[in-house]
């Protein structure tokens, strides 16, 4: 469903991604690990079309369509979702209005009528429960005054509302205590369908214990330098990244 070929990208004139190749099939979970600055967040930002990043080479196909030619909102409508590392606050915009605008934009794209208020609020109530999000949050402004954990739960809640097929979790586990991590991860698992794929960016094994990735990739200097199964994440948890750096390139 997602086919990344020789992807190069720059931010602020500096090349961060130096030839990423990655193919993700429906239902697969791919973990992306690597030290800070390796290009993990750049990859996720490039995929969702953040305007600060420029693709200089390569291609990305999403369900056979040219992802890089689409606007960020079109990418969202096609089923791509990013759970932000640092969700931004939007003062004065209630979660209800925000989600309603988002969901109805998607429905419009799909040629459907907007959901009426009653049906929409009912859907919000249902989906909120999946991540045990407080009902009061629905009336608060988007992420404003939310704790770190609430913000992350709010990201998964939005995922529940929009039902994407390709999710990118960018350090969704960072800043979460054990209980919050469990709620977020189990919430994600409840939402998964056999067709849902994900890229999970993380530094820790904890999240992967819940999400059970099919593949683990190590990013280094803007390239994927090693790919393995779940056991690779365990190994990194124990040994760090330094041993990967010293591997001869032929073993990559």
């Amino acid at each position, binding site marked *: 469903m997602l086919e990344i070929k020789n992807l190069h990208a720059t931010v602020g004139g500096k090349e961060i991604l130096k030839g990423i190749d990655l193919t993700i099939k429906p239902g697969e979970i791919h973990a992306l690990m690597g030290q800070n600055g390796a290009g993990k967040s750049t990859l996720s930002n490039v995929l969702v079309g953040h*305007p600060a990043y420029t693709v200089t080479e390569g291609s990305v196909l999403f369900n056979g369509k040219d992802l890089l030619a689409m606007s960020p*909102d079109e990418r969202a409508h096609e089923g791509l979702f990013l759970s932000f590392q640092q969700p*931004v606050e939007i003062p004065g915009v209630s979660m209800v209005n*925000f989600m309603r605008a988002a969901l109805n934009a998607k429905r419009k794209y799909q040629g459907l009528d907007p959901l009426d208020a009653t049906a929409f609020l009912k859907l919000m109530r249902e989906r909120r429960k999946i991540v045990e999000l407080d009902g009061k949050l629905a009336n608060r402004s988007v992420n404003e005054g939310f704790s770190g954990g609430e913000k992350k739960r709010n990201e998964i809640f939005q995922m529940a509302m929009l039902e994407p097929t390709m999710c990118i979790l960018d350090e969704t586990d960072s800043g979460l205590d054990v209980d919050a991590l469990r709620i977020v991860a189990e919430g994600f698992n409840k939402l998964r369908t056999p067709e849902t794929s994900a890229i999970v960016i993380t530094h820790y094994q904890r999240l992967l214990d819940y999400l059970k990735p099919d593949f683990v990739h190590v990013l280094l200097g803007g390239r994927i330098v090693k790919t393995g199964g779940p056991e690779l994440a365990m190994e990194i948890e124990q040994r760090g990244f330094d041993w990967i750096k010293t591997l001869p390139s032929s073993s990559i």
Partner: protein
Amino acid sequence: MINTDDIEQKAGEQQPSARPDAAELQAAGERQPEGQNAFVRSVVDKTYEYGFTTDVETEVIDRGLTEDTVRLISQKKGEPDWLLEFRLKAFRYWLTQEQPTWGHLKMPEIDYQAISYYADPTAKKKSGPKSLEEIDPELMKTFDKLGIPLEERLALSGTAVDAVMDSVSVKTTFREKLAEQGIIFCSISEAVREHPELVRKYLGSVVPYRDNFFAALNSAVFSDGSFVYIPKGVRCPMELSTYFRINAQGTGQFERTLIVCDEDAYVSYLEGCTAPMRDENQLHAAIVEIVVEARAEVKYSTVQNWYPGDKDGRGGVLNLVTKRGLLRGQDSKLSWTQVETGSAITWKYPSCVLAGEGSQAEFYSVAVTNNHQQADTGTKMIHLAPRTRSTIISKGISAGRSQNSYRGLVRVAAKAEGARNYSSCDSLLLSSACGAHTFPYMDVQNPTAVVEHEATTSKISEDQLFYCQQRGIPQEEAVGLIVNGYAKDVLQKLPMEFAVEAQKLLSVSLEGTVG
């Protein structure tokens, strides 16, 4: 009674001519990424929904302004001598005055002799319409099109309307129903005829004709506007509103509104305005006076959507307005809420004189400027009595090449023991070519007073926009959403139906402005 002349209400004179640079928060000239500029260019054409004209037989007097013009207007309206005298005094005073230049505005030269000062679209019916059947169907259609049906059965629930086109009130709805409770709601021309004692008592008592250049002009040539009187202890059961429409070419509109809210009474009043698209500037110089007696409360809301001119800055209404409320009685309350999205130039400072002990005043403002629009708007809070409180919340939103200034005065007189003011002035910039400015003035004569002022300037954040887009909300809609969120504190002060309209208006006014 307080004589407002004594407390130096001269808006034109009390503003220091040199701008306090330290207080000026100018934030312009930052670069935006190329991608967004391209986006702006592609969608920057803003559409003005109310730019149509009405083809109706209108009696327009000859252009030009002399004493004879003033006499002619007064005669057309069949006014008593005292009012003609009032007009003439104002006119003679106006002749001695210069147009003020202290605003942060590039004002086009106004040729006061090139304007017609009276245009009557109801002239065909000599005596003026007495019932709905007599109103010209073209006028009915016009107000229908503006969303202001003049038939009571079609009216917005709970809202009475005085509909003013050019110089004349076309129709005031629900008058009889309101009269059952002793409430007077009619055009000011009718009030002069039917309640001369009330008009004479209060006209010019809050904004004297000597107040400023435009106040003198208005006092000389004012045509129509609304008159409201809420008797003691009455809570007005409906929202009262006036809809101002400029239609005729080459005319100015000189609205005059007077609201008196007697002891323990309450009223919520709304004002809306639109004008056709024309290449020339049109002058709108209004006065609104409000008197609030003991324990009474007045809420005054404005959604100002005069034609703003085209995207190159051609045409548009010059909106030069003096609005002031006198909180005369103890524990009286007055709140101004304004959403300013229209006009080529806005020069407007709805103010409060807190003369009653314990009186409370509020000013909530959202001012949006786009393309070449200029706004210099704010308020004055004059604390004269002990325990008076005022709140100022101002949100400026600038886009395109526009200039948007907040100008506010907080004055605490020596006798205003324990007075409090809180001011918060925020500016949001949507482009790199626009300007946002804040000119706060403070004059505190009582050491027990607490006066607080906060100001921020921010650019619409790329991260906020992107967050919305990642969730599937298109960029333009995202701008509307974020701006409405930014203005929420003010919008939620508006009556419900108005708030919905205002929200839509904010989004439309800013279509395609991120850059």
